[in-house]
């Protein structure tokens, strides 16, 4: 990504590839390598490589997006998956090969842009170049003979060129005095800004990844959340985040409103229509409580962190009693949503039962029906006919050895599934308000009522704003580098050759040959128009200085209108 500055066609391109140095020793090789890396052609190849290497990340499941999808891929392709993993194809965007390409690209970019910035700064201080001897050789050339003196022509030209944002310098030469103008340095400035801002974006992304964090938490309706790492379900800090630096806000989830498309004739039947969470927020312990509503696309911003409504589901309120009839478990139990109709799965772990540890594995269906495969499935995401199916495990839940466990999974390695006499698992079916006895004197389970829960994502990215500012700077620079024309324009005022023409009446100061020459230094579709416009503006200015003259030359021109009553 070295230079996207276009050269005028007249200047031959320097050879892109130098021959490799022979016998130049280490330093020579380093120089040669550096020159290769920062060349236009290398940058172009790296750009194309970057595009190609980004593709597999959209073809294979990625760990950073969906761990479950990667696990599923492993199950479906047990032979292929380990090999793909060895090639980092499940972590494409943090893989060594992808990182290598974008880092090389950015090194190439910096290695080219920095020297160019130096040249550009020097260029800005240099006066516009001397006037070529023959302006007629330039791509655009105009010449006119005027009655004004060369001094007046140059004065007018200077004013016109400054108005049109040219930097000007005056030169004396054989053909007469001349003015050189150069404009459009903003094009190169924009180009450099674009490339440097891209580096800024990369740095902002890196800062966000190192010092930011992302966490997820499931909050049943009616309960509160205090922003501490211990309360989180998942905690994914950047490499340089220190443990307990979370802002100490808390909120109560007062209500959760969900609605789904209930038009049975539409092919959108069951599609989500609105989700919103009413919360009461306390920004700092002891502070005032304020009511806030969190919606999809409307996160809660509190104390530098953002809280997003990322999901929702059902949390059946369950009570488990042991064999003696004592309550050993009593709370809303979030079930994880598995499909668009909210068929959900969840587990209940009852470690403290004197009649034996109990694990319940459940499927919750908000609107119970039979799926196409004959298995129970939900047919609508709202709770129209909620049913809970449970299978019962007993044995060792594995909670006593202190290893943290996933609360949504049952470790059944030390447990036995309770079956009927002929080996079929016992499956309990519960509707709200119903109680079922657990087999083998383990007690009972009651489906008291149905609550909902909200899944929130808590996120902090310290460089979010910087990434945005650099992106917008990049676009601004890019726009300037594509659309600001870079031009050189010269105007020479000299004595008109005798007998050039004698069409007009000459008033004063003899006859002056005015020549305009223009050269494009970039893709430029308006150069001819610019040459015409500059000349016309100079002539108009000369006219303004002698307002009496048009009247002398065209005495009748305005009279009729002016004399009209």
């Amino acid at each position, binding site marked *: 990504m070295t230079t996207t500055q276009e050269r005028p066609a007249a200047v031959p391109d320097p050879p892109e590839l130098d021959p490799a140095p022979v016998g130049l020793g280490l330093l020579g090789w380093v120089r040669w390598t550096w020159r290769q890396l920062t060349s236009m052609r290398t940058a172009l190849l790296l750009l194309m490589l970057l595009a190609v290497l980004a593709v597999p990340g959209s073809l294979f499941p990625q760990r950073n997006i969906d761990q479950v999808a990667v696990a599923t891929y492993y199950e479906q392709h047990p032979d292929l998956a380990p090999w793909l993993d060895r090639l980092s194809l499940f972590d494409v965007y943090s893989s060594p090969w992808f990182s290598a390409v974008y880092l090389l690209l950015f090194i190439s970019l910096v290695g080219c842009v920095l020297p160019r910035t130096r040249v550009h700064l020097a260029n800005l201080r240099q006066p516009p170049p001397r006037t070529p001897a023959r302006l007629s050789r330039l791509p655009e050339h105009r010449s006119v003979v005027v009655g004004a003196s060369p001094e007046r022509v140059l004065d007018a030209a200077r004013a016109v060129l400054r108005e049109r944002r040219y930097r000007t310098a005056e030169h004396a030469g054989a053909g007469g005095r001349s003015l050189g103008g150069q404009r459009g340095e903003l094009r190169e400035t924009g180009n450099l800004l674009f490339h440097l801002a891209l580096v800024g974006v990369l740095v902002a992304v890196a800062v966000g990844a190192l010092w930011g964090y992302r966490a997820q938490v499931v909050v049943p309706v009616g309960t509160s959340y205090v922003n501490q790492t211990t309360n989180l379900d998942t905690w994914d800090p950047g490499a340089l985040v220190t443990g307990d630096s979370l802002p100490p806000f808390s909120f109560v989830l007062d209500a959760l409103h969900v609605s789904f498309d209930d038009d049975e004739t539409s092919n959108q039947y069951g599609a989500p229509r609105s989700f919103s969470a009413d919360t009461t927020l306390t920004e700092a312990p002891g502070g005032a409580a304020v009511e806030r509503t969190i919606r999809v696309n409307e996160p809660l911003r509190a104390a530098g962190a953002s809280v997003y409504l990322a999901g929702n589901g059902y949390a059946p309120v369950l009570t488990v009693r042991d064999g003696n009839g004592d309550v050993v478990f009593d709370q809303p139990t979030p079930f994880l949503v598995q499909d668009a109709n909210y068929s959900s799965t969840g587990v209940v772990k009852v470690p403290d039962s004197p009649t034996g540890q109990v694990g319940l594995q459940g499927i919750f269906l908000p609107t119970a029906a039979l799926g196409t495969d004959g298995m129970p499935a939900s047919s609508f995401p709202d709770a129209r006919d909620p049913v809970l199916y449970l299978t019962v495990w007993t044995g060792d839940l594995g909670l006593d050895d202190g290893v943290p466990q996933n609360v949504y999974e049952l470790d059944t390695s030390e447990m036995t599934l309770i079956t009927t006499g002929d080996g079929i698992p016992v499956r309990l079916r519960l509707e709200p308000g119903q109680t079922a006895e657990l087999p083998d004197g383990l007690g009972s389970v009651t489906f008291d009522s149905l609550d909902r829960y909200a899944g929130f*994502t808590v996120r902090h990215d310290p460089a979010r704003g910087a990434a945005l500012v650099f992106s917008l700077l990049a676009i601004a620079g890019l726009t300037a580098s594509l659309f600001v024309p870079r031009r050189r324009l010269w105007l020479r005022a000299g004595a008109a050759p005798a007998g050039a023409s004698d069409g007009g009446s000459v008033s004063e100061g003899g006859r002056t040959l005015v020549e305009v020459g223009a050269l494009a230094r970039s893709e430029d579709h308006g150069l001819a128009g610019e040459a015409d416009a500059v000349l016309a503006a100079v002539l108009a200015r000369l006219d303004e200085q002698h307002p009496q003259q048009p009247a002398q030359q065209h005495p009748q021109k305005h009279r009729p209108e002016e004399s009209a009553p």
Partner: protein
Amino acid sequence: MSVDTTLASTSNSLVYSAMAVYAVALGASAFDLATLGEKVGAKRRAASRSAGRRDEATSQAGGVGTITVGRTTAPTGPAPLAEDGTPRRAAGIATSLTVLALLLHLGGVVTRGLSAHRVPWGNMYEFSVTGTAVVVLVYLAVLSRRDVRWLSTFVLAPVLLSLGLAVAVLYTDSAPLVPALQSFWLVIHVSIAFVSSALFVLAFSTTVLQLVQERREDQRAAGRPTGAGRFMEALPPSADLERLSYRLIAVSFPLWAFTLVAGAIWAEVAWGRYWNWDPKEVWTFIIWVVYAAYLHARATGGWGGRRAAYLSIAGFACLMVNYGVVNVFFPGNHSYSGLS
């Protein structure tokens, strides 16, 4: 908010009517191209073009006795094709019909949006119908600045094809938006993407024509027969087509960058991450990189012209993957196709 089914079916009728009128416009413009190609081809054999024009003129202008002595200018753009005043009746009919079809088409887009009280780009069907309307709109905008009627065949054909695909395969009943799309960023992000994509579509057409024209020019220079495709005679020379392709892409490229940034802002608001390597994000990024490579190649010695053109075509191919494949087949946060 319920769906107004009367308006929704009015929208469908309007889209079908627009397709019928586009089809007639396409026929007229193809006919124009064929006849004009014959004519220009015959003229070419008679005369050769000069590289530049030099106007020698003496005139009197301004009050200080100005005499224009000389004016040398580089050739700019294609010479008007119908310079001899040959009326291009078929082209005129095609343009009028295109305008009429676009009005019907826009009517279809607006009624579709009104039927569900929202912007008409919530699923693949709506995206295709609205996107093709923007393509035609951008074509007519370019046409208002310069005579590019030769391009209309190569705009109307893909537009008609996409509309056919939309009504036959992608059709989805009008319905309210899912919560993830209920944001004003949907308006900003997607409408910029529409304009940018439309420019890329036009640039693709001009790039393909540029390559075909270049081939014919090479054949002619080598004294070989140019073979079939006489209609190409009606088109500007390849250098002009190349410049037009570049200008379309140059306008589109910053807009695509803006699409990317607006999408990132929205992603931050909706999902808490401005960049998550979601398949749609990845392909939007790939498209941007490929067109960046195109612009870069054009400024690199030995990479202009045909090689850069291949990159532009690759960019368009990625655009089509992003539009047609990613939403439907790659699971991700952008699975809003409405197809089941």
